């Protein structure tokens, strides 16, 4: 049975449709890459799964997680699932971290809220270890810093540490490595793979970095204008893309050994 099944998902703001009848499936322990145009509805889709769509959004369709329809679930029951069974790494770390609490407190609280009976001191130690796992230097000292004292990539790693600390069954990562240099990025991707090996967690990875998707995902969904244009195994998408948009997208990837010159665009869209 699949862990997550999204069927005919539609998200509207007034008469503007931003996700338009989208569907995909993710098996237990599987890993799904979502790629596509900026503004095509990738973040809205993940927020819909988390039950965290902004006010004014109207969401219809089926979001079935382990047999539970999340779209009709009460907020109280959704809260038990969110963070505990499904964890999300948000695209914009600065606005998803609380500016008034230290990063250590925030990691510790994320952990404590899902592990009853953990003392504050023990949770602090957990926070330091979580920061070390995401390769934040001098974690013991940095644990008392506030988010604004961290660099962009360090904040991103705090979000990742928080998401992993509760051993969720599904990790949704929305552009989790956009501020990481390639060596730290490789360490983080290794860590994600290791955690998934240990806990059997499934992964949805949203990213514009197609090379990263090709390494991480076993299935890829390509989105444009709020809908899926193509779904396939990672090998099929990368070696034999069928849809013209997927073909053009792969053609436009800047490669490190390309000729220097005008970069390829594909026109249209926003």
């Amino acid at each position, binding site marked *: 049975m699949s862990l997550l099944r999204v069927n005919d998902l539609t998200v509207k*703001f007034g008469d503007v449709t931003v996700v338009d009848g989208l569907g995909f499936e993710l098996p237990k322990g599987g890993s799904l890459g979502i790629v*596509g*145009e*900026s*503004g095509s509805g*990738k*973040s809205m889709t993940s927020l819909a799964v988390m039950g965290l769509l*902004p006010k004014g959004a109207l969401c219809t369709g089926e979001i079935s997680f382990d047999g539970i329809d999340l779209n009709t679930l009460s907020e109280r029951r959704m809260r038990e699932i969110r963070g505990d069974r499904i964890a999300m790494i948000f*695209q*914009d*770390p*600065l*606005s998803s971290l609380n500016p008034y609490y*230290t990063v250590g407190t925030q990691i510790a609280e994320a952990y404590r809220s899902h592990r009853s009976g953990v003392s504050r001191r023990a949770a602090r130690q957990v926070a330091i270890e979580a920061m070390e796992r995401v390769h934040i*230097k001098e974690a013991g*000292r940095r644990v*008392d*810093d*506030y988010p604004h*004292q961290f*660099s*962009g*990539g*360090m904040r991103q790693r705090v979000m990742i540490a928080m998401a992993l600390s509760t051993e969720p069954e599904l990790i949704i990562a929305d*552009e989790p490595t*956009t*501020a*990481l*240099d*390639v*060596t730290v*990025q*490789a360490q983080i991707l290794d860590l994600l793979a290791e955690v998934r090996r240990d806990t059997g967690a499934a992964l949805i990875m949203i990213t*514009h*970095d*197609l*090379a*990263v998707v*090709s390494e991480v995902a076993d299935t890829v969904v390509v989105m444009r204008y709020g809908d899926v244009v193509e779904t396939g195994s990672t*090998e099929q998408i*990368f*070696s*034999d*893309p069928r849809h013209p948009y997927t*073909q053009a997208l*792969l*053609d*436009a*990837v*800047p*490669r*490190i050994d*390309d000729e*220097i010159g005008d*970069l*390829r*665009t*594909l026109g249209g*869209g*926003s």
Partner: protein
Amino acid sequence: MTGELLLRARDLVKQFPVAGTAGLFRPARLFTAVGGVSFDLHAGETLALVGESGSGKSTTARLAARLLDVTSGTVELAGQDVTTRKGKDLAAVRRTVQVVFQDPFSSLNPRHTVERIVTAPLLYQKRDIPGGSREFTRTLLDRVGLNPDWLNRYPAQFSGGQAQRIGIARALAVGPRVLVCDEAVSALDVSVQAQIINLLRDLQAEEGFGCLFIAHDLAVVRQIATSVAVMTAGRVVEAGDRDTVFGDPQHEYTRRLLAAVPRIRPEWEAARRAKAAAR
């Protein structure tokens, strides 16, 4: 590059106090985020700052743009020492240097419309808006690949990559002589990214601004940079023109960085190219 020297940074140092180490009669211990960084930026040049997460790239950019006071070192803009300028004496700096920030949403006022955000730097400088505020905003939105009709929307109504492009439009509105781009294309799909990079290149050819370009995507850096500086732990460990740094990296860290660039499997690439050629 032979253009005019626009930005000259010498021995920039930035230290931050370490949380919880200050006592009643004892100053806080200091943490050195930038430990002596120097560079020159000429008109028409794009200097890429690459390197480790947390190595001081954003801090260096903020020092150079005078958004943050230096602990020591000097910043010269077009021959003028602006290191210690304060208050309204900074107006000339704001006119010359524009920054596209790393966190798009938190750098856009959530209560202002796009039109107000994009034209704010011009209004602040009491400059005329060519063709009027609305038309001006529409043209800029179109150039960064956004729907011109969105000028009355608020930041929260945009996706990550759309918000990033509003930041780019705002920076370009002023016609800066120095443009600082801090991970400014990191949230864009490769096609929109190419559009923005081509736009920056075209504008640079027309207007000759200097660009300080921070990015982690080395393939993009190779396309856009004329020179590259590599940072780790608050220092520049290697700097030079693009072809030298990419073609013959000297420092061990630079080599590690280049080796870690993720790639699509060559056999998949070959299969895809063969299929495309047959179409």
